[in-house]
């Protein structure tokens, strides 16, 4: 029998094979070879692309290099979304490797946040964790942690140390046994087709009657368009970490096992491929 721990491991070690190519209009001294990399799904683009940056800077003149940004089929990729989410939202059901275009010019100010250093990513990551814990435990767990525990969470993510990260994150996933779950589930629902960045609402894991809320209950409540009508065909895919959990899956279980390191359940709703 497979253990729930294995889910954590599978989620953590999810990798997306990626091919980085330089944008055609970038001026180079010699031809830029594409760069291939296995990106951790749970990390952030600007956190894991030092090698990519170095690779392309070698062929460029120093003065041409400003802040790096990434784009996939015309869509600028938000570095502050986890990589797995970006892939699920924009590129699932496409051929691998994922082909990302690298830009060094014309930073799309209205689409992307600046990321001048890793501290910015850390601040964003910690802010997410704190927000999630506010929803789950009224911030009690995160506030009781020491500074070094916070640091360990971040270092765990940065250095891809599963054990190091989960030694601390475990505490964030606990709840009093009498409660049967978190206060609210930290989740965000993203839709590729809408302008709105994401949906986030207060949602309890347990119904007032005591039964467990499921993924389906959540969608029905906050994003009814994602669910197929009774008789109709399912037109959308509900993706987390590249898989489609059944709508019967309890949301509490998903939150405990399939949240990203920032403790949010990032759910992508994308059109179902027609073939």
């Amino acid at each position, binding site marked *: 029998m497979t253990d729930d721990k294995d889910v954590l491991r599978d989620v953590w070690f999810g990798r997306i094979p990626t091919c980085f190519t330089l944008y055609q209009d970038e001026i180079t001294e010699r031809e830029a070879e594409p760069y291939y*990399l296995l990106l951790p799904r749970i990390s952030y683009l600007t956190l894991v692309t030092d090698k990519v940056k170095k690779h392309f800077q070698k062929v460029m003149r120093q003065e041409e290099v400003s802040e790096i940004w990434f784009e996939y089929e015309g869509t600028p990729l938000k570095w502050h979304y986890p990589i797995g989410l970006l892939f699920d939202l924009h590129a699932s059901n496409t051929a691998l490797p994922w082909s990302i275009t690298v830009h060094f010019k014309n930073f799309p100010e209205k689409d992307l946040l600046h990321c001048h250093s890793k501290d910015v990513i850390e601040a964003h990551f910690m802010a997410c964790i704190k927000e999630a814990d506010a929803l789950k435990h009224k911030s009690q767990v995160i506030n009781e942690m020491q500074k070094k525990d916070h640091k360990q969470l971040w270092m765990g993510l940065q250095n891809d140390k599963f054990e190091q990260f989960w030694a601390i994150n475990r505490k964030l996933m606990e709840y009093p046994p009498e409660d049967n779950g978190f206060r609210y589930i930290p989740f965000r629902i993203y839709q590729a087709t809408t302008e709105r960045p994401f949906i986030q609402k207060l949602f309890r894991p347990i119904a007032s009657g005591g039964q467990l809320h499921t993924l389906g209950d959540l969608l029905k409540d906050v994003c009814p368009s994602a669910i197929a009508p009774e008789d109709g065909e399912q037109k959308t895919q509900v993706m987390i970490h590249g898989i489609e959990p059944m709508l019967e899956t309890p949301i509490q279980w998903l939150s405990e096992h399939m949240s990203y390191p920032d403790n949010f359940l990032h759910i992508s709703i994308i059109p179902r491929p027609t073939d």
Partner: protein
Amino acid sequence: MPSSLLWAVDIFGRVYTLSTVGQYWELCKDTQLEFKRVSAVKQCCWGIACDHQVYTYVFSGDVPIRYQEETYENQRWNPVGGFCEKLLPSDRWQWSDVSGLKHQQLDSFTLPSPHWEWESDWYVDENIGGEPTEKGGWTYAIDFPSTYTKDKKWNSCVRRRRWIRYRRYKSRDIWAKIVSHDEPDQLPDPFNDISIGGWEITDEPLGRLSVWAVSLQGRVWFRRGVNSHNPCGTSWIEMVGEMMMVTVGLNNQVRAAGRVQALLPVLRAVSLDKGTQGLNWEGKGLNSALKVTVSTSPVWQTGSATEFCSASTISVWGIGCDDRAIYFRQGVTPSELSGKTWKAIVSGRESDRSQTGSSTSLLSAGCFFTDDIQNQTSAVIQGDADPSSDTELAVPTSPGSALLGAAAKANLEMKPSANANPPAEPQWINIDLKEAQKQPVLSVSSFADTSSLSSLGTFSVAAEDAYGADEHPLWAWVSGGGCLVDLHSPLKWFTPNLGCLSSSVQSLSLSITPAQTAAWRKQIFQQLSERTKRELENFRHYEQAIEQSVWVKTGALQWWRNWKPHKWMDVRVALEQFTGSDGMRDSILFIYYMYHEEKKYIHVFLNEVTIIVEVLNEAKHSFALYTPERTKQRWPIRLAAATEQEMHDWLSLLTMSCCESRRIQGPPSHHAIWSVTCKGDIFVSEPSPELEAGPQLMPCDQMFWRQVGGHLRLIECNSRGVVWGIGYDHTAWVYTGGYGGGFIQGLASSADNIYTQSDVKCVYIYENQRWNPVTGYSSRGLPTDRYMWSDASGLQECTKTNTKPPSPQWSWVSDWYIDFSPTGGTDREGWQYAADFPAPRSCSLLKCKIVTNGPWLEVPPVTLWDISIIPSSDADDEEAVALWAISDKGDVLCRLGVTQQNPAGTSWLHVGTDQPFISISIGAFYQVWAIARDGSAFYRGSVSPNKPAGDCWYHIPSPQKQKLKQVSVGRTSVFVLDKNGNLWYRQGITPSYPQGSTWDHVSNNIRKMSVGPLDQVWVIADKVQGSHSLSCGTVCHRTGVQPLEPKGLSWDYGIGGGWEHITVRGNATEASRLAVPDTAEENLAVSKEGEDEEGKGKTEHSKTPLMVSESQELDRNAVNC
């Protein structure tokens, strides 16, 4: 933790139980009677019904309550008629007891009460001291009384035989009336209160219970002879004293409430089995008070409290006076006896009642009730507070004050606060306690007048009307004596019923939770592995975005240096982990030390380490590292840490690194070999196919062992992943499929399937004395003698004060007491005698307890001595797995309903025997062999899947008068072990004659053995000499075991030094090869073909037709792998 029951009586006298795993109150199965009061322990419940008679309710367990009656038939030889019934006048009776002094005819045996029935008729026992007798069971001697033998000689003048008959307690699952034949006039007035307890009196035999009762007139009675074999007891005896209430705790501290005294007297019963001696009522005052906040509910009408050492929790229950709901006191711990808050139980009844009960139900006395707690901690329940305001009530000790008693120094005592004012009226029987709340003192202390008891009267009609179908039940009495509340598994009683179980909340049920088999869960696992395949399969050559770095943990430890004189020296230790080119991590452990001012180091590659094992050492937190080389030397690297935590950190890290470098993760496979050390630690090893066969046998010192959490004495498994264990306290445990636990925390441990486990073992020390002409036996010994207090060998000094628990994880749970039951017997004070040491001595023992966790779930309620699981290899998930066991009392049991999906099974089937058994084993073809306590061997006939318990026992003579102690049956081989450490093989076993013919000696120097499904033989050898040191308790593997050579040729030595048990019964490597599930017959056919192909002679067929040619089978297997 197994489920247990909370008992309660509602105001109509109906008895309900609430299971700790349930959500509904269930009406007691026997509803004939209405009850005033009940008192429960785990095994049974005693109650006083409305007819003022005492009843006991015994649960029907799997093992019957049976008692063996025996008598002897004696005969003398005379020249005319041979042996006949005519005896000499000086002889014993023709029918007598074993000593011959008591006349005992067959028909003089009668059933003690209507609750018993005969199991069968009288029959003759054909067994003497482990030897089968001739048909008829006669044993012969020269004269009475004498030594009897089974052989008739020329001078055998007398003979006798033993007749036995079993009686069985039948009144289970019903209220059995306690009838008093002998003292009808001694019980003039009906009982008013009853309490049962004393299930953990340390110096009493297991199963003893204390039942105390108080009559209406205040006389105190004790029920003699209540134990697990005699649930009704024998007779009532009156105790001195005049009391109102009585409660008994688990340690048999009895508390009673006097009706005159203001204080709560404490009764200490010194030796209850001897009746009334040594009783003295001891007034015990309340000398300090504690503040308790009762914010929710006012006056407590009744309550009970119990402490369970296994959960280290004290449970306190109470009934609210106005709402008549049952409350549980939360947060009660030994250190904080007053607890935190009251929590109401909201569970409903299983079915709403359609009509209200009779109005004649007597309301039981509305006074308090406490059960005693271990450590002389008795609980309080007597809350009172103004319901309208959250008042904090201080409880002064002066009389006449409001009461909420709790005493300091672990002596929390209920105090019916002495009321100086005469009680006005018995308001406490009034259901409308709005008034009483304002006079809480009266309500609790006004049981001063017994006469009022009789006026308890009936319930008001109004109250009954109020008790509609939608209302919660109104309770009159609660007893939590049988209810074990586990801190770790929350009860579902306090919230309205949940529709379905949360997947995250561990279910207590032994079978797999619905959440684990749910479709959504399966789909997630499946999709995740598909995703990994899709996204990684073809791209593994891509560079990782994040580089893995070398990582080092350093620390200061102590090392047992390897040059003489051996001693601990301070060393610096560093563990270097690096990622190899294949992406896997590997590690090296460096130990830096000083040698003659010179800095030196030794290093160990962790992928060479075969085991890391904690070492039992009182003074140091130490562990040992073995490699194959060091196993040969019997000289591991021993390291010690300053604190337990530090040691566990290192152990955890090193174990994880070893597993990582060997690519081992997750739960052990079904083929795993399990073993247990003398510390109770559990180790598991994945067998390689080369372990049993192949061109190059793998030496067993190369096996890698990793630890699994938990604490067990023995462990048994089969090749379908069914694993059972038995703790030192004989509790049965079933493996849950998890891994990790114990010190292995965090990610190396599975999240599900890890549960709290506890175990209790005894530590013995011996007091040695010598007789001297002046003072008799005294503790003044000769200088050459042993220590006055020593261990069993007498070589190590142990005193009561310097004896420590085996390790800091253990804690004492009893006081020293004298063991009266060592082999050889003792006198009344526990002394054993001999001309010179090692005696006289007396043995004292102390119980200590460990609480740990691991992938084990308790299988209640029967405690076990031995287990065997059929080593089946034909994989059919649904098919039942045969599992036999021996209870710790020696009963043979057969587990029903064991499958791969539900390894715990459902129930026990009792298999009758004429004497207690100690060892059992079932072979692959349902051959069941067993060893009785007298050292004789038995074969069980006709066991099959359709007839799981077989039909009868065949007595097999032991080899050369050796007393046997263990049996193990593999595929066809049967091996037994005798008490002198000799291993014997049963020769001549054929399908038509499964009992075999003779015993062949194989080896000596054996402690324990395990024969596997390939007929492989593994043992724990007593002593093995290595190049550097000697190890006792070593895992050994019999090499050269072939179909023609089932006894094998020689031994291969593996890990050792402190090993106690091993089971290889899961290692049927051939199972993986049989892709198509085969029946046994097909299997056999295949193997025969195989043999023919290999050109084996026909002689072999006729000799061992069942036997599969292992070597070739496995050769093929090896090729396949």
